[in-house]
């Protein structure tokens, strides 16, 4: 945490001489590589992303081919991940659903973090009434009952968006926006807290004394130092967004019920845990691995991007 970290990076022995010979990004990459779990997480995530992007072109079984003769089967050659209760191929559904779940997860994380960092940064640096007003807004959003508001937002805009950019993209945009809009508050508070402490540090004072403008102070000096906790929050957000999407689908507000996102697959499988455990374990495992990979990556990224930490 900033308070416990020595104010000046140059006080650390050893670091400057080597850092001088590399670009900051190469240095970050070097640090990241040394974090084994993070590297494993990154590899896993890349593999998964590749699988869901390329997979549907390779595995061409349709996602909605009903075959009652093959229902609730375990993994076999014809169905490598087994089938569900309508005899639909789970591998095809997992690959298709992965696209949706991962896209929703990352896109809404990006929105939540962007909004959160922006509001947190403005509030943290500006003091006075702007800070107070923005924090009121944050508190307001935190205390809003989310589900009723969601209902309202979705009813108001679903049809309009659907007509504008088509049914599936429309719902995607809406869901991403809605999840993003309801998850930026923790990031905003984190960033503001970081800013409040960092802007009083000597190196920021030094920058200010040298005549750096406020925006330069923020962008060059404060923000990079505040990113650690934000990245961790972002990784948690991805996981939460994947699960939140399934909540929305469950309430009938998300994607149509025949679109097999991972959360939807898990929900459909819950009553068959005793006879067809594979059906629930596969999407559950996929969500679990994704979240785990992302959070290890987040750990690694935080260490790698922290300019004051020596690895």
């Amino acid at each position: 945490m900033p308070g416990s970290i020595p104010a000046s990076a140059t006080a650390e022995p050893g670091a400057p001489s080597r850092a001088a010979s590399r670009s900051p990004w190469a240095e970050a990459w070097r640090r990241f590589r040394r974090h084994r779990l993070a590297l494993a997480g990154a590899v896993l995530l890349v593999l998964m992303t590749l699988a869901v992007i390329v997979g549907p072109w390779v595995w061409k079984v349709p996602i909605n081919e009903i075959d009652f003769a093959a229902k609730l089967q375990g993994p076999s050659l014809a169905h490598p991940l087994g089938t569900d209760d309508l005899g639909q191929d789970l591998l095809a559904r997992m690959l298709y659903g992965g696209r949706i779940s991962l896209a929703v997860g990352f896109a809404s994380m990006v929105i939540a973090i962007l909004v959160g960092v922006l509001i947190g940064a403005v509030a943290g640096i500006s003091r006075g009434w702007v800070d107070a007003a923005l924090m009121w807004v944050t508190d307001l959003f935190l205390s809003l009952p989310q589900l009723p508001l969601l209902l309202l937002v979705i009813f108001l805009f679903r049809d309009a968006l659907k007509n504008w950019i088509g049914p599936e993209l429309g719902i995607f945009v809406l869901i991403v926006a809605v999840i993003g809009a309801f998850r930026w508050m923790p990031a905003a508070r984190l960033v503001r807290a970081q800013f409040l402490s960092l802007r009083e540090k000597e190196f920021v004072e030094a920058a200010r004394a040298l005549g750096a403008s406020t925006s330069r102070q923020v962008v060059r000096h404060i923000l990079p130092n505040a990113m650690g906790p934000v990245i961790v929050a972002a990784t948690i957000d991805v996981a939460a967004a994947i699960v939140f999407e399934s909540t929305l689908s469950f309430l009938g507000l998300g994607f149509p019920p025949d679109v097999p996102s991972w959360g939807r697959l898990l929900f459909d499988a819950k009553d068959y845990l005793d006879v067809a455990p594979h059906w629930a374990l596969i999407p559950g495992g996929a969500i679990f691995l994704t979240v785990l990979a992302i959070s290890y990556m987040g750990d690694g990224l935080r260490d790698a991007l922290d300019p004051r930490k020596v690895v």
Partner: protein
Amino acid sequence: MDDRDLRALLSAVREGRLPRRRFIQILAGLGFTAPMATQLLALSGVAMAQATSTYKPTRRGGGGALKALWWQAPTLLNPHFAVGTKDQEACRIFYEPLAGWDPNGNLVPMLAAEVPSLENGGLARDGTWVVWRLKRDVQWHDGRPFTADDVVFNWEFASDPATAATTSGSYKDVRVEKLDSHTVRVRFQKPTPYWADPFVGTQGMIIPKHLFENFRGAKSREAPANLRPVGTGPYRFVDFKPGDIVRAQLNPNYHLANRPHFDTLEMKGGGDAVSAARAVLQTGEYDYAWNMQVEDEILKRLEEGGKGRAEITHGANIEHMQFNFTDPWKEVDGERSSLKAPHPILTDPAVRQAIALLVDRKAIEEHIYGRTGLATANFLNNPERFRSRNTRWEFNIEKANQVLEAAGWRRGADGVRAKDGRRLKFVFQTSINQPRQKTQAIVKQACQRAGIDIEVKAVTASVYFSSDLANPDTYTKFYTDLQMYTTTMPQPDPERFMNQFCSWEVAQRENKWQGRNITRWRSDEYDRVYRASEAELDPVKRAAMFIRMNDLVIENHVVVPIAYRPRVSAIAHRLRAPLSGWDNDFWNLRDWYREA
């Protein structure tokens, strides 16, 4: 069949040439419910069959605790304010009607001494009044005697518009008079073949005058007895937490010998259907669970646990798919699905016929509903042996393709058929419920093969079945092309059931979507027959008219019946619980017992 044929049948039954069971069978095949048929018989001078009780215990009490699970919790305990069956059932523990309906549609006297008939002078020949003789030795739980004043009071209470009773429909158009301390007469405004509506079954529970007298009209919701009922039933009130639990104990002064069997009764609410089934069938924590909307496969697996069984009760509920005859995608004067905008595609009978051919009812029965939803072509299906053989259903993708081809719908490059620039693309909505989503998937796939593109949509049940005016996703607004749900028939009389196809019942903004005609199909002939049936004095002619109405709906493919859904309950193995499809689950709670 016309009214002359019916009359011949009735006289055959009267003279003993035709068994009454066969008569009910014939009428059921024509779209009549069993209670309707037995009432017609009663009016023609044939007494209802005597229902026999299967109750075995020889003493009162000693049965221990009965634990029932309702996955929707009751919220109040006044039968006149009951919203939905969960409240009715909770009330039924404490309150009784004059008579209830047994599984075969016969009346079983409860607070009445006998069932009115022509022989005992209880029924008017012209169907304009009915006289109920009340049981004499009945006491309220607080010791006060039950009399005709209580019955008359219930009519006054429920028919007062200021009370806003949910039962008012059964009481507002009748007059009730006291003949003596234990006799009342119900007068109808016009000859009424369905005379057993007020004071009978789900709408008929009687509340005590002495506790509600001071809480009429606008004050009625303040009565303390709304939450602490004092009734005549087999169990007395102990405790009630709205939305959670109802507790009751044995009524030592119950008016039937040796009853009830259980010392205490607990009705617990909450959870969902699957976990309720589990609590009875697998873990045995509870003795009874209501309304098992669970896939049969899961039920069967749970039954293997050996703790209980799923019991099927035949009613008249039907899962069906509706066509929207108005355009849900065009706004006319700020209203979608408006009568001013007929549906551009679904008004083509060929398209409706094709879709009806594409619903694979057999697969839906076999792989989704099992025992809990039987494939059917009929709107009326109960009991099974009474099912009509006149109607047919078919699943035939090839024929559907031919029908569409013949009507000029040609396949486009993407495989979807189109005509004059209109593509066969529909949005198909229903509530969120696993079996329904599977049905959607099956229909969608078959439609795809016939060149019809279906977008499925599922709405959470509490929204879909709500009467929320601001919400566009309710089933009464029907802002999609197709939708699917189960229509229940709480009253055995077809008059209220069949008005859901009358043109003046169309659900629209003008009537706050309270109208019952959801498909917005309009037919002059149907309206004419319905109007005529309302003015028809002769119950037999009226019956023939309902048959014609039924045929009109089927011939025109206004709806596609999918599965006839009997009621399913989960019952612990040794519990004996007589159930009826025409009344509440607790209709005969007094006869419930546990075998030793």
